[in-house]
């Protein structure tokens, strides 16, 4: 049980803003209609959200502005109290924690990165990063050396004595990331961390983020309104609309099988070969003899290997990380994926 227990678990979480939200929610009996609530002066932030995030997984919450992503994140970190529902962090009931326990949890297990960086303007880079450690009561010397380690991790060495206002947006967000990692949390919350950056820097930061995650293996709840970003980073994506999670699935499944009209609209524009891995379109092994010498990994994005596959006459074997053949892919299939809408 313990090994498969999710790190974050939400069960029917509702967050409704307004004076008599709780009573209205009780009366509604779980059937929350945003319009009716709005007429009564309540705003529905999160509407019946349930999901699990397992250890080392990155769940990306995606949705348009006002769809309740931040609210969901704030519920999961208990920056705001959910109106109803259950939230478990490592099996611990988050909503029943006392203030002291909550603070302990944040000091040891949680880290958060914010859209507008939210650095303390009166503290230097180093002091900002050391801040959570000092709040925890760690000695100045230790916290500074730990913070220095973090500075190196995010590549800001040499700038540790700058003030936030003296840094570019990308550098400020590096500080934000370093600060959230300083206490070595298990759970990492990121609320649109790259939205305030310009496209080039954003791409650079995304790559760096992936590099960090590949070594840190944190459990991540990541919020974005950029579908491309979600596809690029996510293990799984939750698409939200008006507080409701419309679909929660792997990037490939979301692109291939959109659950609702709303999700389909998002996926229409997406070039599939850029998103899908070979694994998603491969066929089972049929004829072991008639295969090309060229092999592709099941985790390769189609676009990156398409040209090579098309050069082959025979079917191309697909292998996993142990060099075992797990499937085949025909050049014609690649043509379908890239140009056709056969499926």
């Amino acid at each position, binding site marked *: 049980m313990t090994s498969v227990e999710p790190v974050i678990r939400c069960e029917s979480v509702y967050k409704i803003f307004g004076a008599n939200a709780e009573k209205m929610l009780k009366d509604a009996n779980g059937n929350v209609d945003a319009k009716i609530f709005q007429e009564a002066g309540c705003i529905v932030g999160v509407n019946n959200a349930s999901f699990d995030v397992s250890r080392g997984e990155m769940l990306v919450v995606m949705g348009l502005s006002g769809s309740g992503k931040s609210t969901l994140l704030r519920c999961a970190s208990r920056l705001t109290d959910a109106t109803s529902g259950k939230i478990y962090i490592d099996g611990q009931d988050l909503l029943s924690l006392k203030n002291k326990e909550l603070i302990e949890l944040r000091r040891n297990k949680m880290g958060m990165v914010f859209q*507008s960086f939210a650095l303390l*303007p009166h503290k230097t880079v180093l002091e900002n990063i050391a801040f*959570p450690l000092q709040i925890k009561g760690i000695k100045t010397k230790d916290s500074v050396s730990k913070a220095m380690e973090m500075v190196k991790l995010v590549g800001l060495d040499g700038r540790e004595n700058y003030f936030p206002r003296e840094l570019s947006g990308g550098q400020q967000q590096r500080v934000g990331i370093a600060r959230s990692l300083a206490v070595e949390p298990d759970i990492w919350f990121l609320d649109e961390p790259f939205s305030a950056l310009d496209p080039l820097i954003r791409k650079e930061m995304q790559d760096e983020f992936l590099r960090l995650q590949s070594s840190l293996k944190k459990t991540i709840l990541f919020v974005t309104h950029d579908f491309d970003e979600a596809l690029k980073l996510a293990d799984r994506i939750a698409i939200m609309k008006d507080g409701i999670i419309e679909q929660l699935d792997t990037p490939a499944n979301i692109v291939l099988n959109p659950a609702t009209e709303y999700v389909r609209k998002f996926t229409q524009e997406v070039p599939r070969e850029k998103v899908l891995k070979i694994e998603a379109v491969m066929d089972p092994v049929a004829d072991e003899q008639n295969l090309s010498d060229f092999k592709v990994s099941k985790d390769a994005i189609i676009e990156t290997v398409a040209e090579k596959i098309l050069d082959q006459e025979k079917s191309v074997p697909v292998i996993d990380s142990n060099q075992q053949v797990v499937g085949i892919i025909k050049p014609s299939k690649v043509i379908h994926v890239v140009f056709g809408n056969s499926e």
Partner: protein
Amino acid sequence: MEFINKHPKLFQWLLLLLTFFGLIFAIDVPEGYKFIRAEAEHVIVEGQSTYSFLGISVSYTYFNFLWRLPPWLGWFPIWINDVLYFFLNDWWKIDFWDSDLGDYRTRPFMLHVTRFISSTLLFFIEFIREIFIGGVKTVVAFTSWDWIDANPWAEFRGIPWTIVTAGAAILGYKLAGRGLAIFAAVTMIYISVFGQWEPSMQTLSFILVAAPVSFILGLSLGVWAYKSKKVETALSPILMVMQTMPQYAYLVPVMVLFGIGDHAGAIATIVVATPPMILLTVLGLRAVSPEIIDAGKMSGCNDFQLMLKVLIPTAKRDILIGVNQVIMVCLSMAVISSFIGAKGLGWNLLLALNRLNIGAALEAGVCITLIAVILDKLSLAWANKQTDYFTNLNFFQRYKYGLIFAGTVIIGLILAYFGSFYFKEGFNYLFEVPHNKGISNEDFWNRGVDWIWDTFFYPLKVFNTWLIVDVLQPMRAAFLRMPVVATFVLVMGAGYIIGGLRSALIVGGFTLFIALTEWWDRALVTAYMATCGVIVSSIIGVTVGTVCSQNNYSSKFILGVCDTFQTFPSFVYLIPVMMLFGVTDTAVLIAVVVYATIPATRYTVEGLRSIPPSLHDAAAMSGVTALQRLIKIDFPLAFPHIMLGINQTVVFALFMVIIGAFIGTEDLGQYILKALSDRQGAGKGLILGICVAFIGLIVDNLIRTYAEKRKKELGFN
């Protein structure tokens, strides 16, 4: 008809004015009505009516309701006095040990509290004062007079002025570089050389106690108001009234509660200086972005850490601007609080003005102004200073300024020591230049005043007479001639047109309060003086502001001038006008005009300068001339902001009118001053102050409502 439909507001205003004047002409002055005196002085006249409320009987002369309302609040000041008296003398008596008597005594709790506050404050003031100019009271507080007699060496002689001067210069250098250092040094040398050291240090010691207390009090209340909605709703109306209440009005209640002396002055100052600090603290804390707060929480801060390590440091700028405000208020109160016994420059200034010794007044006034400017500059520099953070500094670099100061202390002591040989007879000028033993420019100024009087006597007198006879007297008569219904119609009508029923009721309520006190006529006189001042100030301010806002340099220059003038303690404005116009209404009015022009000018410049340049480009592209642009684009857009300036002008004008009572006017201020020498004055002083505050709040409500509406219509935030 079409015209009415097109300009409904204009039509409403016309209708309102018609009704107003109609009422004035329709209602005659009742027979036997004596303006001002008949109502205000408690002369028992035959045929008076009386009523009794809460056991307090009030007698008054009855007039037509439409002409003047009966003083149905006449009991209020007396009731306040009774309540104060009860709390001070009869409520909750407790026993305490009197060490002088060597026995237990009973004393009411409140008296205990006020005595305790008084003696604590007094101790700190004396303590700081004795550091600067020497004394034994602090030492005595810990020992006894006998002990001091036996050990004369323990008497501290104060720090030589050279060291204080060097300290000020070093502080100036550390905070803002060479310019401020030189300015600080020159100022301190001036003060010393001209023999004003002792009173200046007395004033300074008083400020050094009042300012930190106001700061801490304001910060704590601000934090509390930020955290609790209830506290904020309770505080905000009180703060609003306090901010428009003339400073005189606090003197009497403070005097009743705390007696007379430096501590009483300090308390009055604290009461006046705390509200702006509270407001700025709340403002600053509210401006902290919610993400920063979330970041603090996610870093694991508890409530206390969040406030101390995240919120307050992030709101630092606003809070430090609050500190600057506190210091400015303290200096302007330095004079006013000497009415209840605060020693120092303010005291000297008052004495000199009372004796009409303009020269001596100017000497003190210049010193107060200089101290104000220095403290203003130092505190602003501190607010804007960014802490340098370098990790590897050696001992000498880190404590550079401390070490330099230590050096100057030694040099100063050596100088003073040698001075004691050199100036064997009389005074050691390297230690302290005694009061009135420095170079005095008093005679110079006095001769200057005489010269002005001799040379310009005739034109000044002609101007004075013309102004009083042809302008002020008729205006005053016109104001007093207003029947009370007419006033109500005008004020509430304006409120209704501008802000609807809600506004009308609010301003009507304020007016009703004033009308039901026994000082309606006085209030009219205050209103008349303020109106005159506001009209002239607004014309001058808006004109000057408009002209100066036409280019960058003149804008900056005029804003600088405004800044400087604003640091002058308000009382100081009375000196030059008395010098020129003597003890007349003209003098007060000129002071009002000068003082109240500052905000009008500042807001005009700010309003005109803040118009987005893209609009100017658009205007230029459609071929508009500069004048057309000013009239058609700039003014309409800047108008709401300029109106807020006029609002400030009204508040400034009211303050100065009340302060002008010192010269001698016949308005509410005069009564507030009179209440100072009245044993039953506390209630009166307070109610009179509230009346003035309400006059200000009526205008404030109208203008603010208008400006906010207009800004919304224009799409500003």
